[in-house]
């Protein structure tokens, strides 16, 4: 049995070859395509139910998944052994690559329409200021998610597909998640407060 070395690389086990990680789960793409069409039709035909469904379901999933991963999965993952962490991540992260951009697209594309139809976009609306705050909150989350989290997510998957993954590099990339989890967590809680406030006024 090979021993773990003290350098940055993960020494290959002498056991079975690791299956290649599919960075983007191809089987999920038809679902994504269907949702894209659903969103486009909702916007194009001003379909109130479709807009509300996409915005509420997409936003609920975005917020719920973010908070669940940050507050529940993350701490559990941190306490697992390295092999267990790697095995979980190899299955979990490709799904995040396809799920998160999809729910974000559903939420944001229809959110503007919902705001327009509800009258909250009008400067005279009592909800207008709250709406602008929500734009800023979402903007921060979008920059963090698209500029930091997603690139790190995909880079980790590519690294894990190498014959000899660099464990230190994977750890460094994963620490971006931990660092930004606090920021996105606060943003998500702010989103919950703002959205429920908008819906109740």
């Amino acid at each position: 049995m090979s021993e773990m070395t003290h350098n940055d690389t993960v020494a290959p086990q002498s056991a079975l070859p690791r299956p290649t990680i599919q960075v983007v789960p191809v089987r999920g793409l038809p679902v994504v395509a269907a949702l894209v069409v659903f969103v486009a039709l909702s916007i194009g035909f001003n379909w109130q139910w479709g807009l509300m469904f996409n915005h509420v379901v997409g936003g609920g999933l975005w917020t719920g998944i973010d908070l669940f991963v940050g507050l529940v999965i993350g701490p559990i993952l941190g306490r697992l052994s390295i092999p267990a962490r790697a095995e979980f991540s190899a299955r979990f992260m490709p799904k995040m690559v396809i799920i998160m951009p999809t729910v974000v697209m559903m939420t944001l594309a229809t959110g503007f329409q919902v705001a327009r139809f509800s009258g909250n976009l009008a400067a005279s609306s009592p909800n207008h200021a709250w709406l602008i705050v929500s734009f800023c909150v979402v903007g921060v989350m979008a920059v963090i998610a698209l500029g930091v989290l997603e690139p790190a997510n995909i880079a980790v998957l590519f690294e894990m597909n190498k014959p000899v993954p660099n464990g230190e590099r994977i750890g460094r990339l994963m620490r971006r998640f931990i660092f930004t989890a606090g920021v996105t967590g606060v943003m998500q809680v702010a989103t919950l407060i703002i959205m429920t406030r908008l819906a109740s006024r």
Partner: protein
Amino acid sequence: MPPVGWLSSGALACVVVGGILLASYAPRVAPLATATTLLVAAAALMLIAGTLLARIREFAWSTFVRVFKWALLAYVVTAGMIEFAFAHDHTRGTSLVIVTLMLVIFALSVPTTIAFTVARYADPG
């Protein structure tokens, strides 16, 4: 490695702020000077990122191109959806031009960041 990822993320931040500005004034016309300044800043950042990227000698270009083109496909779809929403809401004239150019930068900056982050750790051979 040059800070290509940070520069393209900076461009993304500029267009996000510009997009928020335009959306917050909708359906009225937003102050276009501010939006245009942000657009120009984003374009400049992308230009610098592209220049620095092109100058890298030892780089996994095949990995970069492979990741970039698939990410570009995804973000062209996303940008197209946002463009459709703005056009559907009767955004016209200079505002629509600015929104469109911002979305072009958006569609380019995210794939650049993703592809660079992946390729910088890949085998240049």
